[in-house]
Structures are given as structure tokens and as C-alpha cells.
């Protein structure tokens, strides 16, 4: 569809056709369609997800008109799920939109198998015990889950999936894979074919930095027992040597070589992050291993054998000052090496698939290719079950947050967001919902907080009076601007989870709408 391509042009430039195809295949279920949920879905519908199902049992009240753009005067008294769903449908007719008029907390109990049909569940404004039940259901059914809640000037977002693996993490800044500290024979012989001492000044200033650095590094190694510069002084001397070879002040290629000289000094081999991944127990394959871990196992073999301690070459080079001819040749050399590494990797993947009893062609070529290109950037994200976090949060982290000025308000809100659910379970409404009885609610909430902190192992600790009163002032209000913020964050994380691109957030995000010192808490 040419029109869809134009319509989605600005996002295709971010996640490409593959990311878009993943979105269009996804079916999303929203629980509760107040402003937080509605705004989350709005952003996803605009982006073109395959289908949405809105679950909400409530009717639209006048108060909802003040915080939810998806309902209007004519909606009052009607099913909120239906009204929100029909507005969302207006935004993008390529999306299949339906609604179910039922209360999510009831559905979780009466029909747990309902959730297994979806790619991902967005659960908004749920209370603690429903969260715990839903989390168990989704983990069991292998359905991705994300929780979001807005509450006055605070709120949280929490992803909950057993494991999320990313090949295309697309980091902003990442070192180019140039192998200047460990050039393969093909690169070395190409570099040697170019004479750094060429007399023609035009030719001299168009030798690419890669060639300069490879040749100078081997010159250095020849006079230093085969070693590359490693001490501070040696690095300085190497740079001086580079400078001494310039024949004019304006040689951009030499300036670039100087700036990139750290590539020559960088340690060989793989990063500690990648080491953790290949050492992960999931890389010991069994018949149920995912494609990702099969490829990691192949990568581990590659590094130990053909790679000589390195991953498959990425194969692309950044722009650099050069003649067109040198640059294009250099591109071909990098590309050819990457292709050769890929073929080895592919063979290893096919063998491992066979070994684990799977069809050896079951991982497509382009996936293996993408894996090779991104081998240095792989990411594995795992999330604790909500129940575990709630019952036994990391006490050392919790204590650290409580005493750290930058975290104290955020962790305070984390405790309070849990305390209000206990409060509601005990007193049948959230603190400060009604205008009368504020003082009583404040002291009750304070007691609840002390009790909760005790249960978590922080005996005798409490939160500031100001923060507790503030939480009561909020009175469980769902403010539109806060809901739009939380909904925006939530939809962003959903996109990352579905496209399997970029890196979703870890931990629990706590929104601090007072001074914007929001934080991620790892409990």
C-alpha cells in the first residue's frame, strides 16, 4: 500500500519495514480505558498496530469528560469501552478495533485463558492483587505485559515479561567495528598496497584514516616487539608519529586518524556485556531454545574458533575523508569479510538447529545476517515476577533509595502507590477521594505506610509528612497531562517490545510530577 508507506514515512525511518510489519501483526489488549489507557492506545493506533481490544466495564461519567479526550458529552451514561474504541477507530481505519464491556479485575478471575490470544496486554489502573494474578497468567501464557498507572502527580510504568531478547538494539553511539587493533589479512594487505609516503599532495590527503592507522600500527609493532601502544606515553608517541607524517596543515584525513587512534589501542576481543550473554545458561541449547539463543550458541563457537576471540565483522564503515576509489574499495573489503564471517556463522547455526532436533532452515538467512551485524549490540532483558518484587524487594536497593536525595521522592511515591492499594483494601476507598475527613485519611495512610515498610523489612522507617499529605491531596485523581505522560512512556515501551528493536526499560519507572526527578527503581 503506497499510501500507508507515505502515512508511516516518519516512523519507518526509525523502525523500518520489519518493525512496522511486527506492529501490524500485533494484537494489543487494553485493561481499563481511562485517560492513561486511552492515551497509550491512541499512540499505538496512530502507529498502525494490527488490532486492539478495549476491556472496561464502567459507564462514562461527567467527570470523565474532564480528563479523557476519547469521550464527549454524548458518551455520558454509555459504555466507556465502546466510546473509547469508536474514537480510536476514527484515528486509523487500518486497525481492527473491538471492545469488551467487562471489568478487568473480574475477567482476570473468571476467564484467565482470555488473555492468551494477545501479543501484549496493557494493564492500566489495576490494584495490587489484580496485578499479581494477571502477571502469573501472562507469564504462564507467554504473553507480554506492561502495567501503567497515573495517580495525582505520580504514577508508574513496569514491564513484565520473562525474557526479552534484542538483536537490533540500535544504540545511539557505538564504536565503529573497524578492527584497527586486530586487522585481518585482507585489510592488512589492502592497506599495505597504498603508499603513505606518496609525494602528490592531493593523493596524500585522500588516503583514508583506516589505511593510515593500519599501516602506522604495523610500523609501530615492527619496532616494538610486535606490540601495539599501550601505556599513556606510548599512545602519545604514536600520535606524535602520526602527526610527523602530515605534509600539510589541512590534511583532514590525518586529523581524523588522530581522533580515531584510540581504536588502535583498544583491547581486542568482546565486551563484558557480550561475555555475560554468551556465558548465560540459556546458551546451553535444548529443544525449546529460542532462535536468539541458538544464534548466541553459534556465536560462542564462532568466537572460540574462526573469530579468534572476535565477533563476526559488522561490515560497514563510517564516512571518512578519502578519494572515492579508496573508499569504495575499503567498503568492499569490509563487506566481503562480513559476508565470509556470516557464511561461517550460518553453517554453525544450521548445525546447531539440526543437533537440537529442529529444521536446519528454520531460522531465515536475513535473521542470521542481522544477528551477525549486531553481534556486539545484543541485549537480554529479564523482569522479576511482580509478586516476587512486591513480597521481597531488594532490601539493599530500597535502603539506598530511601537515603539518597535524588531518589527519596521517587521511592516515597513507590511506597505510597502500594500503600494506597492497602488503604483501599482496608477502608473501601482511596485516601482523600472525598473532601471531608482529610486529616483522618492522612493519619491512616501514615500508619499504612509504616506497616508496609515494616513488612518490607525497613523497620521503624517512614516517609515525610509532606509527601504523605500530598498523596492524600491527590485523592486518586487521574489528571490528563499526567495520564498522557504515563501513556506516552507506556506506548513507547510497547513499541520496543513488539518491534524487538531498541532496548525496553528495566526496573520500575516512577513518575515524579512535582519536580520531574523521576527514577527507575530496581527492586
Amino acid at each position, binding site marked *: 500500500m503506497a499510501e500507508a508507506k507515505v502515512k508511516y*514515512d516518519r516512523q519507518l525511518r526509525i523502525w523500518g519495514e520489519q518493525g512496522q510489519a511486527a506492529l501490524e501483526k500485533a494484537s494489543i489488549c487494553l485493561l481499563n480505558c481511562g485517560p492513561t489507557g486511552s492515551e497509550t492506545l491512541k*499512540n499505538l493506533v496512530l502507529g498502525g498496530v494490527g488490532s486492539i481490544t478495549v476491556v472496561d466495564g464502567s459507564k462514562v461519567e461527567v467527570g470523565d469528560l474532564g480528563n479523557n479526550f476519547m469521550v464527549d458529552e454524548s458518551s455520558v451514561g454509555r459504555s466507556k469501552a465502546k466510546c473509547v474504541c469508536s474514537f480510536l477507530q476514527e484515528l486509523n481505519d487500518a486497525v481492527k478495533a473491538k471492545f469488551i464491556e467487562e471489568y478487568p479485575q473480574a475477567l482476570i478471575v473468571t476467564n484467565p485463558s482470555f488473555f492468551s490470544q494477545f501479543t501484549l496486554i496493557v494493564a492500566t489502573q489495576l490494584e495490587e492483587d489484580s496485578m499479581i494474578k494477571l502477571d502469573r497468567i501472562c507469564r504462564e501464557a507467554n504473553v507480554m505485559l506492561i502495567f501503567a498507572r497515573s495517580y495525582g502527580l505520580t504514577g508508574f510504568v513496569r514491564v513484565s515479561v520473562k525474557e526479552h531478547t534484542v538483536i537490533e538494539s540500535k544504540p545511539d553511539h557505538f564504536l565503529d567495528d573497524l578492527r584497527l587493533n586486530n586487522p585481518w589479512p585482507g585489510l592488512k594487505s589492502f592497506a599495505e598496497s597504498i603508499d603513505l609516503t606518496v609525494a602528490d599532495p592531493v593523493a596524500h590527503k585522500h588516503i583514508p584514516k583506516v589505511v593510515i592507522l593500519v599501516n602506522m600500527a604495523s610500523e609501530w609493532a615492527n619496532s616494538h616487539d610486535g606490540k601495539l601502544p599501550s601505556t599513556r606515553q606510548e599512545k602519545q608517541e604514536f600520535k606524535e608519529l602520526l602527526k610527523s607524517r602530515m605534509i600539510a596543515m589541512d590534511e583532514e584525513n590525518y586529523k581524523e586518524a588522530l581522533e580515531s587512534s584510540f581504536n588502535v589501542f583498544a583491547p581486542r576481543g568482546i565486551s563484558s556485556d557480550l561475555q555475560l550473554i554468551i556465558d548465560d545458561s540459556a546458551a546451553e541449547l535444548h529443544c525449546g531454545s529460542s532462535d536468539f539463543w541458538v544464534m548466541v550458541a553459534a556465536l560462542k563457537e564462532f568466537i572460540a574458533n574462526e573469530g579468534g576471540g572476535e565477533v563476526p565483522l559488522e561490515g560497514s564503515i563510517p564516512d571518512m575523508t578519502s*578519494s572515492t576509489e579508496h573508499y*569504495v574499495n575499503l567498503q568492499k573489503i569490509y563487506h566481503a569479510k562480513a559476508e565470509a564471517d556470516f557464511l561461517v556463522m550460518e553453517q554453525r547455526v544450521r548445525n546447531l538447529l539440526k543437533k537440537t532436533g529442529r529444521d536446519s532452515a528454520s531460522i531465515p538467512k536475513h535473521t542470521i545476517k542481522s544477528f551477525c551485524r549486531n553481534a556486539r549490540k545484543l541485549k537480554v532483558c529479564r523482569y522479576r515476577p511482580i509478586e516476587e518484587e512486591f513480597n521481597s524487594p531488594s532490601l539493599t536497593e530500597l535502603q539506598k533509595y530511601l537515603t539518597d536525595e535524588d531518589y527519596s521522592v521517587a521511592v516515597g511515591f513507590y511506597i505510597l502507590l502500594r500503600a494506597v492499594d492497602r488503604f483501599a483494601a482496608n477502608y473501601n476507598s482511596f485516601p482523600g477521594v472525598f473532601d471531608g475527613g482529610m486529616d483522618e485519611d492522612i493519619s491512616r495512610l501514615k500508619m499504612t505506610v509504616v506497616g508496609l515498610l515494616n513488612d518490607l523489612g525497613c523497620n521503624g522507617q517512614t516517609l515525610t509528612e509532606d509527601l504523605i499529605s500530598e498523596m492524600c*491531596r491527590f*485523592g486518586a485523581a*487521574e489528571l490528563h497531562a499526567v495520564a*498522557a505522560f504515563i501513556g506516552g512512556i507506556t506506548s513507547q515501551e510497547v513499541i520496543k517490545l513488539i518491534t524487538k528493536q531498541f532496548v525496553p526499560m528495566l526496573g520500575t519507572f516512577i513518575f515524579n510530577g512535582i519536580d520531574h526527578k523521576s527514577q527507575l527503581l530496581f527492586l
Partner: protein
Amino acid sequence: MADSATSRSRDLDKLLLRPGNLVGPSFEPGPELRDDLRDYARVLVVGAGGLGCELLKDLALSGFKNLDVIDMDRIEVTNLNRQFLFRLEDVGKPKAEVAAKRVMERVNGVNIVPHFCRIEDKELDFYNDFNIIVLGLDSIEARSYINAVACSFLEYNVDDTPREETIKPMVDGGTEGFKGHARVILPGITPCFECTIWLFPPQVKFPLCTLAETPRTAAHCIEYAHLIKWDEVHSGKAFDPDDPEHMQWVYKEAVKRAELFGIPGVTYSLTQGVVKNIIPAIASTNAIISAACALETLKIASGCSKTLSNYLTYNGVEGLHIKATEFVRNKDCLVCGPGVLIELDTAVTLRKFIDMLEEHPRLLLSKASVTHRGKNLYMQAPPVLEEMTRSNLSLPLFDLMGKVSRDVVHVAGLSSMDNKKASSMRKLRVAFKGVPDGVTDMDMAGGA
């Protein structure tokens, strides 16, 4: 007053009607605050694009009733993945008008006045009428212009402290892909856009010799076709990035050049991206940034919580990074400072003064229009105004300013700072030599 629980301000009332300890210094909770916000607060949204659409919705649902929106663009198909107030059948219509209409249709009681024009087309007074200006823009030039306008209203006391009632707060948002920022600018107190201009490094351009002699990347081939070949072939005809035939031509030329040099990667999509300098944009990032801006606008107007101090960044590429940074003002800032001091003889005519602005090393301002206390002394455009004010050119500025010893004038024109011409607005402190303070005609007449 309707019962809070059954009114449409059910949720907002919790914040506006109840006292708290973590609030702004000016906070006076109560129904009057809510009603004043609704009846008297006027907010201008600059831009009706990705951020603007969200901002109008967010503000309309945050207690504001009187909104204006200004945007010169028309709706395009590529807007529809995020500018949620627009539909396919709206393509070609003015953004400001459609956005205003859609929000008014859904949020009862909100009044949004659309302005389908360039920001430079409005007089200074237009901007001064708003309590807060919220910016949802994607260009540095437009931000810089509005910033200068808002800062031009700022007046200083004799001890160089800003006069509070002249501070025009701005809230500014910006996004690119999974990244964005939201900031609060209180001119004279927190850094203005110009104080921290280094946050927006200029876009790097390819050297022409690379394009002409040593192309290496697909982008080099595209820019060769766009910047060099086009002019060679179409003598005199300007390239129009919005004309699909022009774009096709550039694409085909770029492909030819890439083939000639053996360079891979030229596509039509990349051609558009390079030529139009397209910034990738998605709904979720715009939603996050706009919501932060709307929340700060509500806080500035009501004092119901502390204000962001003063720059918030969001980055969702790898995990989630949100950070508030407190930047500091540049005390010598040309835009939000007390203004460049210009000392003049009382005999200097307005024409001479305008010529001086072009030479002044800190201004380099050509084609200047001059206003004093809201009165047009000389206007370059439109022709009617030019004709009406032309006779002032030969009069001494001292006389035109009411024979005061010193005062502020506003000048608008083209600045040529950093070898780049841009519309700009400057505030100047004019002092006349040999005229003692305090014995002016104005004072004699009892004026202030």
C-alpha cells in the same frame, strides 16, 4: 458551584482546590483559582504539528479555556502517523484551523482561536496578550524568534533585577525519534533559548568539494544532484522540495552519479530525507513531551505544584532516561538581558539610528523596524504602515521618544550573525547624551 464529584473538573479540583506543602509559592487553592484559570488565563500554542496537536488537547483538559494556536502549514499525509487531530480528508487544509475545530468539537466550553499565518506576521502586541506561550516547534529559527519576542517584553529595574510583571513565561518542547526535551523559560530568571543555544548545534553540511570531487556516500550523491546539478541544468529555476517531479529528478540524478562511482544505497526515501532534512517523528515521543509541557503550563498558571527547574530530557532509545537539569542564565545574553545600551546624541534622526543598527557589531541588524512603548516609529512593511511612518525617518529619535533621557525600544529586522540571515527581534536601551535623568518632559507632565 457544582459538586466536585459529579463535575467535569472532578480530578483537576483535587489539585486546584486543596492546600498542599509541595506547591508553588503563589498557590492560593480554591474554586476562584479554578475559575480564574478557565476565565482569564490565555495561552498561545505555537505550532499545530505533532507537539501542537497534543498540546491543544492536553491544555484543553488541564483547566484552560482560552487558547490560541498559530501555524502556517497545511496538513500532509506524512503527518497522519502522529498528528491525531487530522484525518486523510483534511490533507491540504490549514493545520491551525483543523486542530482548533477538532478540539473544540470534543471538549465542551473550550475556545480555540486559530491563526493560519507566519509567526513573524503578528505584531508584538499579539504575543503580549497571552499569559503563557507554549512552543511546539521543529525549527531552531522559529524558537529563536518567539524567544526574542517574549524576552522583548521583559523590563528591568534600575538595579538590573527583572520586573516580575513583565516576565512572559514560555514552555518549550522538542522531539526527534525516541528523544525529546521540555523546558521552562522564565525570561530574566531562567536561561532563555539564546542563553543555551549551544544545546542546538547547527546541522553539519557537506563540503562542496566532497560533493563535486570525492563523493563516497549515497547522501553525497543526493546532495550533488540537489545542490550542484539542479542549478547547472535548470538555470534560474528554483528547486521546490514539495514538488514530486523535482524530487524524482534529483533522485534519478543521484542514482546515475552513484552508479558512476560505484556507491550503494541511494533510495527515493533517503533522497527525500536528505533533501528535506526530515526528522523522524512518532506519536509516543510527542505525547510524552507535550504532556510534560502542558503540566508545567498548568503549574506556572496555578502554582499547584513546583515548577520544573528548568530543562527536562527524555531518551527512550536504550531503556529509559529522564533527567531534569538546572541550566544557568548567561548574564550577558543579548536577548534576555537588560538589552544592548546605545548612547545617542539628541540630534540623531531615526534614519541614522536605523543605519547604526546595521553597523553595530553586537546587532548587525538590517532592514529594521522600530517601535517604542507599543508605538510604531518606523515599519518596513506592510506598505501602508511604511508610508504612514516614513515621515518619522527624518525626525530626531529623541523627539519621537518623547524627549526622555533613556528608554527601551524594540527593533525587528534581519540579523546577519554567524553569516546567516534570520528574522530577529532585539531590545535596546537607548540613552541620550547630555540629558539629565529625571528632568524630562514626561516627568514634568507627570507621566511615569
